[in-house]
């Protein structure tokens, strides 16, 4: 649409099949993980190579519809050998809302030094969408698991408050787990969070509560946007 308006565009395409269907004027496909269009975090040299290859397409005269493949895989695409997740206290899979809240509170406390270290090292955190500090998360989670429909201004609805709480919890754990080098692959990180932490299990439980709610927005948002589909428990 921007090209139609008179501008030259180039897209970093993550899914080649989609680029083949949409046929943008210029696209560079990369094998990077979905969500990392420029490739490898903390690797400026790799990112420069991706960007130089993409921007070079702007000088090509042989369009429209140029689709090139970037030849390198990001170094972090595959699992990191020997990566060990940060230790978290043991937890029980059968929990009341208060039990989940206590288990998550214990984990948050255990992970806090790593999260603070990551925050200090990077000078930033991607926690912040829930409009609640980490100290408030366990009690809000307890209420949500109990079926309470609280909202957190400026998020207007319980569905949004719960959705962005999920995002913040995942961000906190992700930053804590990536505080030390070498960092895990995205698969290792997801596997740890969704299968080994109380928070991951609590969010799966929260999804079940949302799906049983009388609040239709919460049913929709909880069903689709709390737990990534690949990490939903297998049907018994």
């Amino acid at each position, binding site marked *: 649409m921007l090209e139609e308006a008179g501008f030259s565009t180039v*897209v970093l395409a993550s899914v080649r099949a989609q680029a083949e269907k949409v046929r943008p004027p210029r696209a560079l496909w990369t094998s990077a993980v979905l969500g990392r269009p420029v490739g490898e975090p903390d690797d400026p040299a790799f990112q420069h190579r991706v960007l130089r290859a993409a921007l070079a397409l702007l000088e090509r005269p042989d369009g429209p519809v140029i689709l090139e493949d970037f030849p390198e895989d990001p170094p972090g695409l595959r699992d990191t050998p020997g990566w060990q997740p940060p230790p978290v206290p043991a937890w029980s899979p059968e929990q009341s809302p208060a039990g989940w809240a206590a288990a998550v509170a214990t984990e948050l406390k255990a992970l806090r030094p790593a999260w603070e270290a990551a925050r200090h090292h990077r000078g930033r955190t991607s926690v912040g969408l829930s409009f609640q500090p980490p100290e408030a998360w366990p009690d809000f989670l307890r209420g949500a698991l109990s079926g309470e429909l609280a909202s957190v201004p400026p998020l207007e609805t319980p569905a949004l408050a719960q959705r962005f709480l999920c995002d913040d919890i995942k961000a906190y754990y992700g930053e804590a787990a990536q505080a030390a080098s070498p960092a895990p692959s995205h698969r290792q990180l997801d596997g740890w969070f969704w299968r080994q932490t109380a928070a991951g299990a609590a969010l799966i439980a929260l999804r079940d509560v949302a799906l049983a709610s009388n609040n239709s927005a919460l049913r929709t948002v909880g069903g689709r946007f709390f737990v990534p589909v690949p990490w939903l428990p297998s049907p018994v």
Partner: protein
Amino acid sequence: MARIEDIPQPTRDAVLSVPCPQYDTTPFVPGKPLRERRIAILSSAALVRRGDKPFPFGSGECRFLPAGLDTADLLVSHVSINFDRAGFQRDVNVVYPIDRLRELAAQGAIGGVADTHYTVMGSTDPAAMGDSVAQIAGQLRQERIDSVLLSPV
């Protein structure tokens, strides 16, 4: 992952079955050498400044990102949870490569970096984005920018 075999099921099937817009025309705007072009970024990550409201689900709006914005305050508010956030947690540039573009400009590889960049919510019907395209085009013209790097998550 964006090798299709690297995307776990059932997300893989969902990605492949996403309706893709089809266009009757294939516009192609040539231009100056790269060394003379200033580049703007358009990210589909629904980036928001800390403290701002997230993008509404399905919103066709766009938001402007001044080049001087502190990237430490950027958060991803995209509706989908089926793409990785861990890379962004470590390095904003995997989504919004503002530092890398500045470095390429300093190296002389590109002419410069735009004063304004743009973000929209991906997973949105492009038909809902007509006003946003007009807003972006207006700002690009005002800044005399002719080239845009599209960075979809």
